[in-house]
């Protein structure tokens, strides 16, 4: 392990944050000018910390696996701390813990907020808040790879450390090419949604920040009432469409739209993901009709929006789902556990692993009836190595154990059980809204500071799929 090399590349990642703060300062200057000094000072400060290690530490050609993991895990943590600076410098309602929570929620694309009144914040700060979603959504390392050629050949191991192990990439050799493909899809979708929302009548500021939150499957809105504030079927439909698209593996989207090459297994996952959303919408609509909404139109409108919002780990809201019947809430919580496809910007266990789990269950049942048979797991006629299946199942178990332990820890701070469990599921899955006071129209402001810290930590655990952060905590890792 070469700690100064890790420091150099964490610094490189921080430069992205500094650039984002600078861009937000410019937007702030054009709109209301209130948070400009705060954003500029933060930008310069973060840039100093990011650039200075490069003065001393030379470039390296290759990373050791441990260094890649350390760069990714520390990069995410450093970026979250740096991202809290503008909030801290702004002051009320942000204290140290609130600022960290908001920043981690932004970068991990969770979308959980401690803000009771969002609309009182200046435009520049709100833009930065949405930009943290956009930077974190695509992955800070992927973004760094696409922007900085200096990451070079070591980029592949960095990218492997950040991406979900079950994510299926496009068939290109260089890590930088993969990063650029992902970035093309990401920027393309963001631009398309911004334009569509502007056509639907939103001003540029609202359209762009909503697009940042949608494509990153984050959920930060610049309005207190989230998407409900616009009360527009057109806006809701556009947001729904882009939430669904953002939950699909980007390599599959790129293959479908540009290269005509599809990653192995991606189509099965995509159809399963769309099927889960459709079935959930149907059941939730049946459960809600006549109990909460008068017409089928209204029922499907709000039911579909909330299902897609939670099922893609976005977290936008058009209605208060915390007052829905228990059945609908249970479906939303299951969706918050699963979320969308690997290789997208969503969190959770991911549909890819659910598909593997389902195939494994069927194979297990078959082998019980045919004890002498050798059963293989196949996705789209390709045999999945036993090692990959075992890793996926181990992840599911670790994830659920993580949910139980974190819920327990949050509950021990005095948080009610519903908020503890649903808040933990929502934060580890990077979904945002849970149930009760932390529901779709609520916030996390009322939680104990320790509970906020635990949930902020849980968000990073979920975003990096547990292991990189666990490794950071291991003493052997640093030897």
């Amino acid at each position, binding site marked *: 392990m070469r700690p100064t090399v890790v420091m150099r590349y964490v610094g490189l990642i921080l430069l992205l944050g500094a650039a984002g703060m600078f861009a937000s300062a410019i937007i702030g200057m054009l709109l209301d000018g209130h948070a400009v000094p705060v954003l500029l*000072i933060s930008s310069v*400060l973060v840039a*100093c*910390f990011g650039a*200075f290690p490069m*003065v*001393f*530490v030379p470039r390296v050609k290759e990373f050791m696996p441990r260094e890649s993991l350390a760069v990714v895990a520390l990069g995410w943590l450093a970026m979250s701390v740096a991202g809290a600076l503008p909030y801290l410098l702004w*002051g*009320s309602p942000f204290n140290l813990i609130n600022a960290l929570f908001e920043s981690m929620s932004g970068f991990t694309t969770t979308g959980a907020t401690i803000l009771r009144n969002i609309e009182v914040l200046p435009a520049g700060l709100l833009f930065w808040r949405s930009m943290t979603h956009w930077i974190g959504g695509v992955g800070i390392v992927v973004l760094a790879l696409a922007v900085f050629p200096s990451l070079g050949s070591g980029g592949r191991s960095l990218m492997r450390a950040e991406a979900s192990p079950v994510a299926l990439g496009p068939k290109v050799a260089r890590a930088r090419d993969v990063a650029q493909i992902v970035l093309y899809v990401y920027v393309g979708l963001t631009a398309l949604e911004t334009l569509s929302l502007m056509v639907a009548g939103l001003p540029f500021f609202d359209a762009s920040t909503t697009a940042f939150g949608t494509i990153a499957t984050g959920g930060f809105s610049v309005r207190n009432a989230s998407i409900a504030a616009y009360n527009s079927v057109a806006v809701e439909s556009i947001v729904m469409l882009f939430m669904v698209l953002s939950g699909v593996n980007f390599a599959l989207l790129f293959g479908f739209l540009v290269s005509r090459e599809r990653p192995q297994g991606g189509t099965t996952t995509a159809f399963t993901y769309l099927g889960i959303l459709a079935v959930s919408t149907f059941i939730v609509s049946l459960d809600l009709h006549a109990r909460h909404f008068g017409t089928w139109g209204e029922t499907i409108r709000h039911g579909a929006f909330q299902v897609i919002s939670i099922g893609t780990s976005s977290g936008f809201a058009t209605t208060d789902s915390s007052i829905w019947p228990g059945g609908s809430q249970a479906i939303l919580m299951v969706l918050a556990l699963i979320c969308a496809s690997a290789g997208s910007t969503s969190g959770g266990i991911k549909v890819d692993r659910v598909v593997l789990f389902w195939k494994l269950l069927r194979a297990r049942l078959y082998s019980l009836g045919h004890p002498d048979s050798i059963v293989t797991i196949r996705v789209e006629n390709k045999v999945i190595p036993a090692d990959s299946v075992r890793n996926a199942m181990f992840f599911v178990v670790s994830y659920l154990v993580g949910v139980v332990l974190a819920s327990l820890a949050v509950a021990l701070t005095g948080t009610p059980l519903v908020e503890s469990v649903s808040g933990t599921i929502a934060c580890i899955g990077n979904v945002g809204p849970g149930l009760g006071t932390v529901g779709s129209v609520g916030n996390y402001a009322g939680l104990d500071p320790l509970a906020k810290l635990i949930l902020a930590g849980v968000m990073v655990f979920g975003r990096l799929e547990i292991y990189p952060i666990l490794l950071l905590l291991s003493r052997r890792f640093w030897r």
Partner: protein
Amino acid sequence: MSLGKKLLLGFLIPVLMLLASGIWSWARFHNLSQSVQALLHENDRSIQAARDMSIALERMDSAILLRISGETATADTLDHAAQAAFEAALDVAVNNVTILAEPAILDSIKASYLEFRTLEEALRSKRDIKTYQSEMMPAFLRVTHSVDRLRRVNQDEMYGEAIHIADEAFRATLPGRILVIAAIIFTLMFAWLLHEHTVKPLNKLLHAVKRWPTTEHFRKPDVHSGDEIEELAESLDIVERTFGGRNKK
């Protein structure tokens, strides 16, 4: 980058951070002191004016009671002085409107005062306590109530502003503290990088030079600092390759 530039950057950045911290805190505290001055000057003037009006009203009330008890001359003197004091205080309040609700309150003070004065002059000939209690007293209470409202509104505003200033004070000191902490962390980072990428290579070079006479061979240490230390290691390697061979011959 040369060693000199590296060192200069390492020392300059924390100094700039501390300087920024100082300027930021100074600017915020300057704004804060101006807010405090404005707060004291504007709201306190209105509160003082309301107090003066209340005292003047009390004196007018005393004059009415003196008139009832037959001391007309003293009552007239007191009443004239009280009227002048009230009107002067009202003038101050009218010229110092800082709160949205103040104009309406001032209008109600003017209206109720006019009513009180008209009634007082009309009933001056009726020197009995019953007329005072039934007619004068309610009119008097209406004016004092309006004046009280003016005082309360300004006090509330002052309290609200004080809370806002407490928040501003926190915001004024926080960036300074953050920049100071950042400067400390930066200095520690600089010290570590200096140790890893300047002191360690220098030690490696020193070790190699010390071993040179005993081994009669200079083994170039693995130095990639990109500055004068790396240049020195390469120069010594050139010296070894140029003169080392000759000595062996």
